[in-house]
Each structure stands twice: as C-alpha cells, then as structure tokens.
C-alpha cells in the first residue's frame, strides 16, 4: 500500500457566492472521493458542508459533480479518477445551493406528492393477501431500486438548463410513476397527470439520466418510453401513432 498525496479542488461557499479551494491530502489504496473529502473536513476544513449517510452507495445522499461528472462521492474510487491533477468536487448544479457541497433537494420531495399514491386492487385471497408472479414484479423491482440520489434530475436538461421545475417532474419521478403504473396490484391511473401537469412531453429521450444512474436503472428505455407509449395508445388516434406522429 503506497500513501501518496492528491489535490482536491472543492467548491466552498453559499448562495451569496463562493470559490474553489484547493486542499492536499494523503490518499491510500481503495479510498473513495468521500473518504478524501471527510479527511479534509476532519483535518483542514472542519466546517466543510457535505451530505452523506451510509458510505455504501445505498442511501443516495452524497451526489455531487466530480470532475464535472455527476456521481456518488462514496462510490467513486480515487483509482478511477486521475490524481496527477486536482480532482474537482462540486455540488449538483441544478438545485439551489445550501452550502459547499450541499444543495437543497426538497423540490423532489414536494413534487413526489403530486404523483398519485399506490392504490391496490382488492386482495386476491380471503386472508387479505395478493398473488403476483416474480416475472411480473421484476420490472417494477428495477424501478424500486432507486435510491433517490437525484443525479438523474440533476443532469436532465429540462431541469438543469431550462429550469422547468413547475412544469416537469423529471426522470426520477417519471420512474416513480412508472413503478406505480406497472405495479401488478395498482388500480389507479396517472397518465393524464403525466401528460397535462407533469410534463412528460418535455422529455426528448436524450438518455442523459440513464447514463448517470448509480443503480443502473434503464430510466429512459424501461420507464419513460413505455409511459409515453401508453400515453400515445390512450390519447392519440392509432393511425397517427402508426405514422409516428405521437412520438
């Protein structure tokens, strides 16, 4: 095990403004970016604001932009980023900054309330339970792997560049809607909300969200496109759909 030093260029500041500050710290085999940030916090910058919980890629708290790439700090190994130049660590850019690496992601939680809740059909068995085949739950389970890191929301241009926070719910919540719509037991309907108030039409299938998802959920292919297809089936004339107008 060789101990070497690396330089981290970390964004420090709040809504009033801020700057990148360089810190040098010792790094060792197996370390992740979050380890280095915490070491800097403990040794050199006690008040550095950073959000993390599990340090195991399970809670989705530590999303940030590392060398410009949206990633989880706790799952980004230092061996995967060049350490011969400063490693840039910045907060997610799409959400309002609180301080340093911490952003205000509360919008995501508020928006979730606009997605109609799970409403099961009547139980299948007299004891109040249901029957579902594994093969029918596989797809929903993929979506339910989501750790709500909001990295997908962070990269989606509709939110990041166009800031359409009132009109669009973003890939995370589209995935959430898909999980409910495709839940074998659910009996509610969400398509009209998706179309009229949640802005699914803004998504133009760039797949940037899918690329950054740490849970490797196929957000665009498995969640958004099927939802769009269901919408087309429901709202557009089948002939127009055949000619591709609905897409």
């Amino acid at each position, binding site marked *: *095990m060789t101990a070497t030093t690396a330089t981290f260029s970390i964004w420090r500041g*709040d809504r009033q403004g801020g700057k990148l500050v360089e810190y040098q710290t010792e790094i*060792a*085999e*197996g*370390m*992740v970016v979050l*380890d280095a940030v915490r070491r800097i*916090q*403990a*040794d050199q910058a*006690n*008040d550095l*604001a*950073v*959000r*993390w*919980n*599990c*340090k*195991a*890629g*399970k*809670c*989705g*708290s530590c999303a940030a932009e590392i060398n410009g790439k949206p990633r989880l700090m706790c*799952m980004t*190994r230092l061996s995967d980023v060049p350490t011969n130049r400063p490693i840039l660590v910045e907060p997610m850019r799409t959400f309002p900054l*609180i*301080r*340093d690496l*911490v952003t*205000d*992601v*509360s919008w995501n*939680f508020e928006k*979730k*309330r606009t997605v109609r*809740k*799970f409403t*099961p059909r009547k139980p299948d068995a007299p004891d*109040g*339970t*249901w*029957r*579902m*085949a*594994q093969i029918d*739950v596989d797809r*929903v*389970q993929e979506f*339910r*792997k*989501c*750790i*709500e890191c909001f990295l997908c929301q962070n990269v989606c241009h509709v939110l990041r560049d166009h800031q359409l926070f009132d009109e669009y719910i973003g890939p995370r919540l589209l995935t959430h809607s898909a999980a*409910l719509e495709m*839940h074998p*037991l*659910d009996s509610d309907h969400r398509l009209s909300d998706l179309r009229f108030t949640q802005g699914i039409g803004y998504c133009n299938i760039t797949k940037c969200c899918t690329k950054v998802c740490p849970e490797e959920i196929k957000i665009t292919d498995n969640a958004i496109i099927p939802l769009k297809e269901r919408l087309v089936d429901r709202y557009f004339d089948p002939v127009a759909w055949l000619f591709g107008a609905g897409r």
Partner: protein
Amino acid sequence: MAQYETIRHDVLIIGAGGAGLRGAVEAAARGASVGVVSKSLLGKAHTVMAEGGVAAALGNVDDRDNWRVHFADTMRGGQYVNNWRMAELHAKEAPDRVRELEAWGAVFDRTPDGRILQRNFGGHRYPRLAHVGDRTGLEMIRTLQDHAIFERISFYMEFTIISLLKDGNRVVGALGYQREKGLFFVFQAKAVVLATGGLGRAYKITSNSWECTGDGIALACDAGAELQDMEFVQFHPTGMVWPPSVAGILVTEGVRGEGGVLRNGLGRRFLFDDIPPLYKDQTADNEEEGWRYTQGDKSARRPPELLTRDHVARCIVREVREGRGSPHGGVFLDIAWIKQKIPNAEKHIRTKLPSMYDQFLKLADLDITKEPMEVGPTTHYLMGGVRVDGDSQMSSLPGLFAAGECAAGLHGANRLGGNSLSDLLVFGQRAGEYAARFAKDASLAPVSESAVGESIRQVLAPFENGAKGRGESPYRVQAELQDMMQELVGIVRVEDEMVRALDGIQKLKERSRNLRVEGNRMYNAGWHTAIDVRNLLTMSEAICRGAIERRESRGAHYRVDYPEKSEKFAKVNTVLHKGEDGAFKLRLEPIKEMPAELKQIIEEMK
C-alpha cells in the same frame, strides 16, 4: 435570551427510519397531528441499508413455521434475557405488519405460487425472512415514506434534536436545530416517540451510517429515563476488511443463507469444529447436509455458518488471532463455490445478491461469483437501549416512548438477523398507537425557558473557542473515542480493559468541554460532530458500565474473565439511569416470571 421558534404537535416522532415512519403513520391514522424530525433527508435513515430481510412467521415457504417457533427462536437467540412480552408480541404481530407493507405498495420477491418469498437466516429455524434481493431496507423505508407523505404528518428534515424538555417528570417536547441555517426550534408535544436508531459510530469499525450516534438513548438518559442492557452490542461476523477505507461495510448474512461458506486461511470450514450445545441438534454435521438446507431441503439441518452472530463472530476472531486468517486479517466467505453444485451459478448469485455483487466489484475490485470475499466482524447493532414497557413502548418517563433499535428488550443478549426490521414495524406501530392514545388524554404543557436557554448555551459554547482560536477539534476527540471503544470494549472483553476505557472516557469528557467549532451555524459539520461527541461519550460510558457489571458471557457480551454463563445473570437485566448529580446508577433488575404458556413453548422447541 435565546432565540427560537415554537412548533406544536400532538405526537412528536424523533427519527424517520422504519420505526419512526411506522409510528408516524399509526399516530396519524388515529387522528393525532404528527411531526417527524430527522437528522437526514427523508428516506436516507440507516434503515435504508438493511439488506437480508424482515422476519415474520408467514409460513409461505415452510408451513411448519408459526409465531410460536419464531418466539422460541428469538428467545433462544437472545439467551433468555429478552423481554418475553415483546418477543411474544413481535412474533405474533410481525406477519400482519409485513402483509400491510404489501398493501402499501412494497414488492417483495415471490414464491412460485405468487406469495411473499422467505429466506433462511441465522438462528431462524425455518425460512422466515421476507426480502427484496438484498435491499430489503430500501424497499421498506421507501414504502413507508411514500405512504406517509399522504398522511397528516409534517416532516422536518435535517433537524437535529439536542435535548428533551420536561414538565416535572413528564416529557413535553424537545429542542432542536435546523441544519441548513442553524436556527433553534422548540417542539411542544403531548407525547414524544424516540426512534433514533443505534450507536455503531461509537466504534471505529462499524456497518452503521454516520447518524448512528445513539442520540435518542443519550437524550433520554440525560432526561432521567432508564436504559437497559447497554452491554449487549452486536458485532456482525461479516463486514468487509479490505481495502481499509471500506472496512466495516456489511456483507449480508444472506450470502450464507444462499449457500456461502466460511473458510479460514487454511481452507477449512472452521465452524464445523465448534458448534454450541444449545444448537447441536439443529445443526448439520457435514457439508453436504448444510448445502441441502440452504437449497430448501426440509429434512436437512442448517450449516454452522448460520449459527447466531455472536458465535460466528467469535469463531472468526479466534481463527484470526491464532494465525489462521486471510491475508488482510479476516477469513474467507465463499459463494462462488456453488458453481460446483448448480448450473448458472454466476447469474444466480447476481440475482440473489445484486448489491453484494456490486459492492465488491466497485469497492474492492472483486467478483464474488468468481472469488471468495475477505470478511471480519463489524459493530452492527445495539440490543440494549431505552427501557420500555413491552405493550406500550413507554419509557420510565411519562409521555416518552421509544421504538426500534433505540429501545431495549426484544432481542435480549443477541439479535437474530431480520428481527430488527420486524421490530421496527411491530413496535413502531405500537409506539405510534400508544403515543396517540397518551396524547388524547394529555394537554400541551409549558416548556421551561431556562432549560431551553441552558441547552442552547451549551451547544453554542464551542463557537466561542472557535472564534478565539483555542480548544480541540471534535473530530479528534471522536476518533480517539472510537479507537478506544474498538480496542477495549469490543468483541472480547475483560474487566481491567473496560476500567481503563471508563477512565479514558472520563478524560475525553473533560476534553469535550473544550471543543472548538469554526465558522458559522449554517450546515456546519464540525458543529454537528461536536454534538455527536457528547452523545457518543454518554453512550460509551453506558456500554462500559453495563459490560463491567455483567460478570458472565452471554450472547454478544463475551468476557474472557468470566467465559461462562452465570445463573445469577441469567435472571436479570442491567438497568442504568442518571441520578440528580448526573452520575450513572446501575441496578440488576430481576426479569419478570414468564407465563406458563410461554415457558411451555420454549420447552417444546428445545
């Protein structure tokens, strides 16, 4: 005078893990106005990390299972110092609590006939853990979260409670600060529920998230509530050991449930060499039988890898100490070997243990479908905690309830895997119910201005040091405490080391009066750490005191100077509280006599 805002609720729930959320849903359903406060964002609590499953005697996979077997297993695992009433209620109510999750949208793995699938886990006689791959905690917390946001519940995310407020003996609220701006809030409530989880962060090597600093237990203790069995800290046998920066991260017991085996550096399945008498009859005596058990053969007995955690952890420590460990000071956990037994083993492993596959690939460059993992014990769970009434979950202070990991009793000296998630559901529900009932008959009481002012003054003190450039770094004190607890009050304990630890804690306490925090109150990690340190010190002292007093070895508490179980301690819980002078008082509280009916179940299942 200190500045703060006041918020009022019928029921205040501190903590948004499984226990807190389940409690909140229950209290709201009973008409209470509910506030939930949590240190982190919604859905991020430590519960999200749970992997293997939630234990409930649904009997979906093996219809011989029922609450009586679950009860007996839980008592045996806890070495009979459990609160038997809690063990009984837990075993009886867990199935309903799990089915209810399904009605709220949870999607568990399925049996071939479409019901909730259950898997094997250590100490459970039959396959009993409902699960979703190895991310059961995520499924649970998300289900509860997505259900709760539609109820009459207000969420206060990234708020930290720093003290409980009392009117006489009754708890009537709590004081906290909001992380973003560092502003103070007084929560006035008719009933308060602690659901703050465990204290793994008292140790250096732990599977727990940063939040697990024992806050709720420490706050309850500072307010005068009784704690129980604080010596029982569970060390999970399989945490990652390499590379060092990930040491402690959990490797789920599910790996062993799916057929994974433990070998020492010499390639020997060492657990076959040491099977405790209490479990002899239920344990396989050859590798073939053990394998058949993991594959659902009902006539086979379980492999020794699925013995209780305390035992497996100690055996690993022994192998390592006696020089038979793996290169980085652990032992080998091998799931890849099952390819000798089943076709498509690699795919099977990846579907059954997806997070483990990812975790090792990403963090250790190791493909678990091809190579064995290196594992060793990690601080995992606190069986002790706030002493509560088994039915209502009320603590020794009126108006204060506790549920989940921060409450003591259910697990006795050792918790079985999967029994925590079910604990959260069963006793979260109960705490919510009884808190709502209590609130119905109670009114809001005034809070003491002077107590609030004093608390605020205390937590702000380190800023003065920071401004004057003096005092000590809270990170440093925290790290020293963690090192010391790891070394002196870990898996293998002995009196003089623990006395040294107590002494060390005293010294750290003095140093902690002079901490330094720089900067301002906005999202200041240094400040948060300073507050955590205070709680961790209280918790560490409680662990030490309980551990010194229990002069025997039982469950997770192992003492080289008293390596056997003792008759005397078999009948008691250790109960701690802080006296008027702030010093801990300890007593041995006799365990209430078990009703004949429950005794009989235990006899039958021996």
